[in-house]
């Protein structure tokens, strides 16, 4: 029984078992590997995608639960990977190893949609993803920078 998914504006079908977490459907069945596997218990945020615009951790989310929902992944965040966050990320040399950064960017993008001018505290709450390299100071600065770009 094929499931229909709306991902990055395109309708895709998958034969994955409906209980499979969205993360693994994206990665293994649909070949979209920008969304990362980090912990499997919705703790670290490496697997963050948008479901109907909300930042959502996909590693514990059964794919059946999001059939029909609008799903956005890092691959679909901006047409040429030129979302102001992605631009700021490169300009400010944010990433170290880079593994957690798709999730960071997706969490930040959802925040900026709801709150175009977040405070440090807003960012701390909304972007509570884990980064082992310690990119947090740069992540925060890049979110502020992107917020500025989007306002102007």
């Amino acid at each position: 029984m094929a499931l229909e998914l709306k991902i990055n504006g395109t309708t895709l079908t998958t034969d994955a078992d409906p209980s499979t977490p969205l993360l693994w459907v994206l990665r293994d069945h649909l070949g979209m590997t920008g969304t990362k596997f980090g912990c499997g218990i919705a703790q670290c945020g490496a697997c963050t995608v948008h479901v109907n615009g909300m930042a959502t951790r996909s590693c514990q989310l059964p794919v059946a639960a999001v059939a029909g929902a609008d799903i956005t992944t890092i691959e679909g965040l901006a047409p040429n990977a030129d979302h102001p966050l992605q631009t700021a990320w490169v300009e400010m040399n944010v990433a170290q190893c880079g593994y957690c950064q798709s999730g960071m960017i997706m969490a930040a993008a959802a925040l900026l949609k709801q709150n175009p001018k977040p405070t440090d505290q807003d960012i701390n709450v909304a972007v509570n993803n884990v980064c082992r390299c310690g990119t947090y100071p740069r992540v925060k600065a890049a979110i502020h920078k992107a917020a500025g770009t989007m306002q102007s």
Partner: protein
Amino acid sequence: MNKITNVNRRQFLISTAVVGGAFTIGITAASDADAALTKPWESPKGGAELSPWLSIMPDDTIMVRVATPEIGNGAMTQTAMTITEELESDWSKMQVEGAPADRNLKENGVYTQAGGSLAYFAGRSTTDARMKLALQVGASARERLKAAAAAQWKVPVAEVTAAKSMLTHTPTGRTLTYGQVAVKAAAIKLKEEPALKPQSEWKFLGHATPAKLSAPAIASGSAVFGMDVRVPGMVYAALRQSPVHGGKLKSFDASAVKKMPGVIDVIVVDPDEPRDTSKIKAPMTLAGAMPQSAIAVVAEHYWQAAKALEALPVEWTDGPGGQWKTYKQMRDATTDAISKPGSKVMVERGDISGLDKSAKIVEADYFTPYSDQMTMEPLNGTALVTADSVEIWHPSQHPEQGLWVAAAEAGVSPDKVKFNQTYVGGGFGRRVFGNDSRMVVAVAKKVQGRPVHVIWSREESVRQGRYRPLVAAKFKAALGANGLPEMLLSRAALGEGGYFIGWIDSPYTVAQIKNVRLETQTLPLHLLTGPYRGPGYNSFGFMYETFIDECASAAGIDPLEYRLKLLEGWPDSGWSGSLKEAAKQAGWGKKLPKGMGQGIAIANWAGGGKPQSGTTVAAVATVEVSSAGELKIHALDIAFDTGRIVNKDAVQVQLEGGAIFGLNMAMNEELTIANGRVVEGNYDTYPIMRMGDVPKINIHFGGLSGHDRFSEVGEPPVGVIGPAIGNAIFAATGQRVRSQPFRKLDLNWA
């Protein structure tokens, strides 16, 4: 003349002579630069190879091959920057890929030289030898490009200049790009290697601070980490190794899962099965990459494999590690051991026989726990094994070792292994032993005809670690009339695989305290250990610098002043300079309200006990402890001496990251054991700081001595953050902090 320009040209010529211009590749296709960025093992096609390290494409893209894998520290970007300085290339044209380990083997060690930092495919890019090599690669290519342009124009080479990837005939203003003459340049051999410019003439190094070359691929989500490798026909394996390290598989029931959706096979990894290693003469030890008893479920998709592994009935024989019923037993074993003389004397200077009769004795015991590197990318790798070959796609800190391990496990000749280095989702020492490559090949070799992507779950990654060892240590000193230690006895007890950096090589140990004896006791704790960011140093930095603080307190001397006195005569101004800079910037000595305090610490990473060597770091922590014991860290002020720096921004982010790593290590990290098994498995029980938990971190550059070295920055901060915070807690509350992690201590001072 400075050290960098003092290049050993003969050595360079020897290593390039193997290939010279002979490996020139004709222009066969347009470059596919984007693919190279995201899939580092897919080299752009076409272009001209000027040396094993450098190819230039017709579109002027320059591909640099680097033997130090990018693990987040910028090592590959830095190498491209170093080459750029002498190549006079346009930075926007520079790209990097991993130097292929299989080529190194087939071409007689073309990327390696015996001894020193050039001997292996790991580590950083700014060692003296690596910088010289990269500069020479750039200079050599530049001169050959100039010669090719001169030949084309039929003019003397002296009339040709090179800048920004453009060659100009100065008298006529004619120009050619590097890409336009690259094929001809590749066929040119220089009579003599060009001399390098002195550091004072560097225009790019020391000035430019570009983003890492990996930044666009990472921000777009297109960078392919080991976890993201997709090979046609690939299947997945979920792996479980003996939960007690060194234990063995006893029984399992494959029939219980074979009919589950997608399941292809259940595979056993037997460490005792015969392996043909007759062809294995590896240039490095493979001792850390021994196979472990394991079982794996192979399925069409990872989730299917993981669910089936969960459902698979498995029994294990625990082996000797099972004797550790509780973590307390292990702690007690180490703390008991340091109350008795050690079995091995690590350092003996002067005479400490009078220590116990001294008038003023300071004594304290310290403890640091097992910790896991907890890389964001769980361990994994992909391999296709045939009867006589292996191809592996792997996120490694040491691809050359990975190649040898793969050959050893598959029983094939090493020249039949192709090792494809991927992006690496964090290393911190976890991916240098090659045991992950071992397990990948051990599973894949039992799946015929299909590549297998073997994935450790997060819990499996954490519980099958190569941990920072558990260490207990005693420090006991006799203070002289001036308050400084005259004699020091220190004993450390730890499990197998200890490191002693920050203890045996501290300037206090090697010079500043006149009578020193350091002893160790290695206990059979049966848990696998390995390098964890700043091995040894991450424990001994905390212990030594807390103890020095205790001595200062006993002597009634300010902790900053005490360290400066103790370091008097140490011939390296980087120590006092870093201390003073961190203290000044933090406002050391300022009046603070009750419950607040500042602490200071200093240590050196990788200096080997020699002055003006390695990286010296000083940190001041400013903390607040509520009467109920809640700790708030207000700021960390860090000063350091690497000698010089070539990339200020890269140094800044590595020091910040290292400080956060050291902070988390000191505050949060501890693995405990029950019935021989590691208890913690994921972020819920092994917390890693998040954005809101990180204090203000101020990196100060005023401690740089200017000494002629470019020492490393990734590991040094981890040794000083913990003791700076602990010493600040003492200043705030009067309570001494002697064990990590701090989150498990009661700091209540009401």
